[in-house]
């Protein structure tokens, strides 16, 4: 054996190699379970072409139906964002391990984990079943997901602050509330605004969906249009949603810049 082979600088990582092979094998096996064949793909494509054909041109009409649905979706998104942001502040604060005693953070973290465990659609179904059809259920579902997102990131932002700045404020004899207001909040405010605007974005998207399960908004209209095979109206709704999301994107970008 030569000296060079004994001093191989790139030794084979056998566990990684085995893992890759196993992953590839499993993917092939899983695909075979669903009979994902080329012919199946071709029939699918053919069907898709017919569907697209029936969508064009988008229906220009039913404006009142569109308007009612869209405006309700926007209202759901904004109300849910406002409530979610307001409720996230105390929850996030209580979950910050560098400010709160351990048992408090565990309770708050448990609540956040609960809010995050389900997709907004599942939460929306739960609320539709418990409080009935309509915007209230949609709003409550989005408030839950907003808390799950903002409170978690807010707590993490607080855990990353500089404690030196906090120490200096504490040294002046300031009480806990004043330490928060002048020592902690200035350090996390900009990031909090960032999370909140991102959540508004996300709530706008989700508010167009909760209607499918009865949570109010354009989703209900969209679902009905699908079921009635009004694919041209479906396209109109989809284009309107795209426009709404883009406007939301622009507005939230502008908000983030304002609060840097």
């Amino acid at each position, binding site marked *: 054996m030569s000296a060079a082979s004994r001093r191989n600088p790139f030794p084979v990582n056998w566990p990684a190699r085995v893992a890759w092979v196993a992953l590839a094998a499993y993917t092939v096996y899983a695909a075979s379970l669903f009979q994902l064949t080329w012919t199946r793909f071709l029939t699918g494509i053919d069907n898709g072409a017919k569907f697209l054909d029936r969508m064009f041109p988008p229906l220009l009409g039913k404006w009142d139906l569109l308007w009612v649905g869209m405006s309700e979706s926007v209202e759901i998104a904004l109300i849910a964002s406002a409530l979610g942001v307001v409720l996230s502040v105390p929850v996030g604060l209580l979950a910050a391990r560098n400010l709160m005693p351990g048992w408090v953070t565990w309770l708050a973290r448990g609540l956040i984990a609960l809010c995050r465990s389900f997709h907004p659609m599942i939460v929306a179904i739960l609320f539709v079943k418990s409080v009935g059809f309509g915007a209230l259920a949609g709003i409550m579902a989005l408030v839950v997901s907003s808390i799950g997102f903002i409170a978690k990131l807010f707590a993490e932002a607080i855990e990353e602050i500089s404690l030196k700045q906090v120490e200096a404020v504490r040294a002046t004899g300031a009480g806990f509330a004043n330490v928060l207001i*002048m*020592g902690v909040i200035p350090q996390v405010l900009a990031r909090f605004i960032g999370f909140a605007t991102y959540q508004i974005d996300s709530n706008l998207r989700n508010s167009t969906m909760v209607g499918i399960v009865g949570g109010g908004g354009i989703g209900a209209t969209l679902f009905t249009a699908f079921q009635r095979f009004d694919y041209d109206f479906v396209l109109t709704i989809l284009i309107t949603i795209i426009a709404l999301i883009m406007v939301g994107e622009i507005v939230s970008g502008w908000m983030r810049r304002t609060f840097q």
Partner: protein
Amino acid sequence: MTQGGFGSGAAGGTPDRSLRLVGLRKEYVRGTPVLRDVSIDFAPKGMTAIIGPSGTGKSTLIRCVNRLVEPTAGQILFLGRDMAKLHGGELRTARRRIGMVFQEYNLVERLTAIENVLCGRLGYVSAWRAWLRRYPAEDIDGAFELLEAVGLAERAGQRADALSGGQRQRIGIARALMQRPDLLLADEPTSSLDPKTSVEIMELMVELAGRRDIPIVINIHNVELAKRFAQRIVGMTGGSVVFDGRPEELRDEHLKAIYGGEAWL
């Protein structure tokens, strides 16, 4: 509560500003004391400099005084009370009387210079007023006077993170004096600054505190600065005081005892 004006020393009604440490002990880990029963009497005016190698407990000692660090045992007698025994609201009320200047300035970076100076009043204003930045008019006047005194009046609206190191430490001094304190603690206030700025910061501190008859207790690495500005030097090593005297009494053999070795002298 009587409070001195900002312009000059608090005339009349000035309490006894001396500080007494009795048997002060601190153990971060049980059985390994960082401070070994330190007893020091600090005069009610002038500057006392504490020198000693890194890790000898100087920072711990100074942070025990305003209880940013919890002492394990001992007394901290100041303004007629034992700081070591205070809790909650009483502790915060006592802390208001003690200003502190930090090595890395510890300004709230995203607040403006004037907001940082006004942080010195946070022990007095309610949360509601702090949130709305509704400080009493006399505090705002006082803050601008102090900014003027440290030479940064035109920087009032600038954010702290836009200031240079020397400027930040000036704001740090203004914030501490904004408390109208009876004692000024300084923890290595010049260690992050260049030599020229260091001297300027020391001069500023001595002048502004001197005008108000506020005693200063300072930790400092730079022995020359300590000798130049302090009236008394306390040398510490291994958590104990090994020298205590006037600057002119500090000789090479003392420095050897404090820092160990002699090659550096």
